[in-house]
C-alpha cells in the first residue's frame, strides 16, 4: 500500500524523469565510447608514426 502510493504520487514526473535519465545515459555512453575510440586511434597513429619515422621525434643534439 505504502509502495503503491509512493509510486503513484507524481507518477508522470517520475516517468518523464526516467525517460530523460535513460536518454541522457545512452547519449553520454555513446559519446564516451567515441572519445575512447578516438584516443585509441590517436595513440595508435602516433605509435605507428614513431615506428615509421624514428628520427622524427629525436631532439636535436646540442
Amino acid at each position, binding site marked *: 500500500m505504502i509502495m503503491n502510493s509512493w509510486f503513484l*504520487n507524481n507518477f508522470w*514526473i*517520475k516517468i*518523464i*524523469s526516467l525517460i*530523460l*535519465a535513460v536518454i*541522457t*545515459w545512452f*547519449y553520454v555512453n555513446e559519446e564516451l565510447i567515441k572519445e575512447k575510440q578516438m584516443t585509441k586511434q590517436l595513440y595508435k597513429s602516433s605509435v605507428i608514426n614513431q615506428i615509421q619515422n624514428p628520427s622524427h621525434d629525436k631532439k636535436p643534439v646540442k
Partner: protein
Amino acid sequence: MTSYLKLAKILIEIGILWFVYYVILIFARGTRGVYVLRGIILITLFFVITKQVGFERINWIFTKIFALSILAFLIIFQQEIRRGLANIGQRRWSRFFLKESEIINEITTACFLLSMRKIGALIAIERETRLENYIESGIEIDARVNSELLMTIFMPNTPLHDGGIIVAGERIAASGCFFPLTQNPKVSTTLGTRHRAALGLSEETDAIVVVVSEETGGVSIAIGGRLTHDLNRESLERVLGNLYRPDKKNGK
C-alpha cells in the same frame, strides 16, 4: 559476476540521473521555470532524434543553439537557481519528524470556527511543489500553525485578511498571498473569487487548498483542479490526513 557488476553500475547511474531530473522537475513545478524546462526537454529530444537519424547539419545547429541556451538559462533564471541551491542547504529535515496530525487539527479547528462565524478563508497547504512564487506575493509570516493565529489573520477589516495563507511544513509561511484564478470554462459561474483562486492554485500545483465560504460558511477543499463542497470536520480531517502522507514518506 562482472556482467552483474556492470549492470548494477548502469542501474545506479541511471538511478542517480533519474533522481536529479526528478528533483529539478519537482522544484520547477509551480514556478515560471517549468515552461523553460519544457522547451529544453523538447529541444533535447529533437537533438537526440536528429543525431540518431543522422541529420548532421541540423544537429550541428542544435548543438550551437543548445550551448547558447544553457548560458541564457543561467542568466535568466539565476534567481531561481540561487533559491534552489539555498533550499538544498536549508532543507527542513525536521519536517520528517513532524506531528502532522497536530497541524491538520489546528487547520480544521480554525476552518470550522471561521465557518460558524461565516468568515471567509483560503488556506493552501504546500506539498511537493514549492509555492515560493505565491509566498512572495504575500506578506511573510513564518509562524507555527495554530488555529488562533489562522482565525486572527482572516478577521475582516484587518490588513492581512485579503488573499490566502500558505502553510509550508509546520509553519504559516505567508498570508495575503495571491493565487491564480482558474481559467476552466466548465467551472460554475456561481463560484466566487475565493473558490476560483483555490481551484486555480490546485490546477497549477499539487497543493491542497481549503476554502471557507463567506456566504454560506461551507468548507470546501480543492485538489488537482477539483473542488469538493460542504465537508464536515471528520471528512476534512480524513482528506487532509490522507493527502499529507505521501509528503511524509518522501522525507520532505
